[in-house]
């Protein structure tokens, strides 16, 4: 497992476009969107979270686009199958590395921009935690989509898994309201941690089966 985490971290760190691209998109959207509309600072406070949520969805979508495609194309998946006999550990490692190297920085950028746009300093940690957990859920879902259509252009599968991300967005919206009104945040975060843990355990099994079908 450690071997896979080290290898995936090394590979992702060498693919500048794959990890820096989503971060730049996040920054770009968060800067460009408020500039593109004529709105007062007061109103921006009210819906800036919505911009962050949409940016988060978009960057997660982009970040996971080529998650398994390269390994499928160059034959690395077959080599991994010979070592481990399935892809569970590989998928788990990939999602972990992607969340750490892309998901958490994206969450930090989101929290930073929300603070810069008037969110109280006390809420910074809450926003960061919320966005990090959302990324964990979204990366799992989009990795599944990516694995589904790996031999037909991974973007197609990621698109098809987009409806699965809607409950996460709804949950995120509820959590944002709870931060704004100071009520029920702990319950929502607990729910998200629970869903995140279950998803992190089960989704690699499903993705592993999908990948096996593709190399068969």
């Amino acid at each position, binding site marked *: 497992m450690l071997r896979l985490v080290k290898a995936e971290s090394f590979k992702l760190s*060498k693919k500048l476009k794959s990890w820096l691209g989503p971060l730049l998109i996040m920054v770009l959207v968060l800067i460009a969107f408020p500039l593109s509309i004529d709105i007062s600072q007061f109103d921006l406070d009210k819906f800036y979270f919505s911009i962050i949520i949409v940016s988060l969805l978009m960057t997660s979508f982009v970040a996971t686009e080529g998650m398994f495609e390269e390994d499928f194309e160059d034959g690395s998946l077959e080599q991994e199958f010979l070592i481990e006999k399935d892809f569970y550990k590989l998928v788990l490692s990939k999602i972990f590395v992607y969340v750490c190297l892309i998901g958490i920085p994206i969450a930090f950028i989101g929290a930073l921009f929300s603070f810069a746009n008037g969110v109280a300093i006390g809420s910074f940690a809450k926003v960061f935690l919320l966005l990090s957990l959302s990324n964990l859920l979204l990366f799992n879902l989009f990795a599944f989509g990516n694995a589904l259509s790996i031999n037909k252009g991974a973007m197609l599968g990621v698109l098809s898994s987009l409806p699965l991300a809607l409950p996460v967005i709804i949950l995120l919206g509820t959590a944002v309201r709870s931060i704004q009104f100071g009520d029920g945040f702990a319950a929502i975060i607990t729910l998200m941690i629970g869903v995140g843990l279950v998803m992190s355990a089960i989704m690699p099994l499903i993705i592993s089966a999908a990948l096996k079908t593709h190399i068969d």
Partner: protein
Amino acid sequence: MKLLSAQNITYSINENKLFHNLSFEINAGEGLHIKGGNGSGKSTLLRIIMGITSPSKGLIETYDQDLNISYLGHKNAIKNYLSPLENLKLLFNDAELKIALKWLGKFGLLDVQDELTAGLSFGQQKKLALIRVFTKSSELIVLDEPLVGLDKTTAELFSGFLIQKLSEGVGLILTSHIDPMINCKVLNLGGKNAEAS
């Protein structure tokens, strides 16, 4: 010692049987050269042997559940955006890396070890992929057209390596249109362009 046996292996695509009722065994120190024309199912048979593809009928039985297989197929499984040295570091631990670096030298790739793999020629990339097979210790080596793209010197080096591995008791299964210059059993799958054997 038996490493693997195939019993009545059949593989069909839709209604067309690619091959039918194939049975063979591989013992330690024994080689099997699978021959056949294009589209006769050589690569598919290799993938069935390794458990990557499921046969339509029949059974592949390995006598050790954890049979250690080294495999090189049509895809090199190397990362184009990394240098040859980084590719090797990704694959091997420190002890294995020393062996891999020796092979890198023997293959004349030391000069390009820090360049991007994407910039290497097809033959150089193939050599890099072969280092995985040469370095990893395994009980069975499975190779799909390993000689394609290799120059004469490397092909001889490669044949020498396989002969040495066979003498050490490692099993070998390979497909090749080029004579691998080793003494092994032949399985001819036929096909439209198959050579008589």
